């Protein structure tokens, strides 16, 4: 696990790309699911 994290975050440019990608992709998924659940269940 530690080796994997070291590999992903060993260089600053790659680390920033991963941080932004996690934020953007995760945020998109959560927001879509939120509005979808509102539309379906509310």
């Amino acid at each position, binding site marked *: 696990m530690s080796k994997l994290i070291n590999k992903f975050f060993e260089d600053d440019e790659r680390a*920033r790309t991963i*941080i932004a990608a996690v*934020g953007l992709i*995760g945020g998109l998924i959560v927001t879509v699911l939120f509005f979808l*659940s509102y539309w379906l269940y509310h």
Partner: protein
Amino acid sequence: MNDWHFVNLFVPTLLPLVFLAAFSLFDLSKMAKLRTNPLAAIKDGQLSWAGLGMCVNGLYELHHLPPEAVLSTPWPTIAFWLMIAMMMLHAFIAAVGPIFPTKRVRHLGLRKTAIHYRVLIASALLTLASASVYSLIHLTTQVWQD
């Protein structure tokens, strides 16, 4: 858009940046002047702290419904867990972003500048998403109290 949006979304997000910009009007040292640039305060994803606050407020409103509020059963539970997921994303950006600070650069063209400040863009978009989700929760659960 009403005063609720202004007080709960825009003020907590933008007021610190207004104060920073105001400090640039004073006769500070060159280094301090550089630090008063609002970009310096948000370039590593610090907007996510504001987004985190919006998620917490959304969770609070979901769990403190007025007695008149009637919500269909599955939605508040789903919304609760999605807000928790959103909080995790904000916390990740806010905590890990400053470990790998973005260098400030002069304008490189829109696309290259956006790619260079990708953590800032991600935190800003995520904060916008949190603001819209928090608004929806407020309008669904508390609107009759306004």
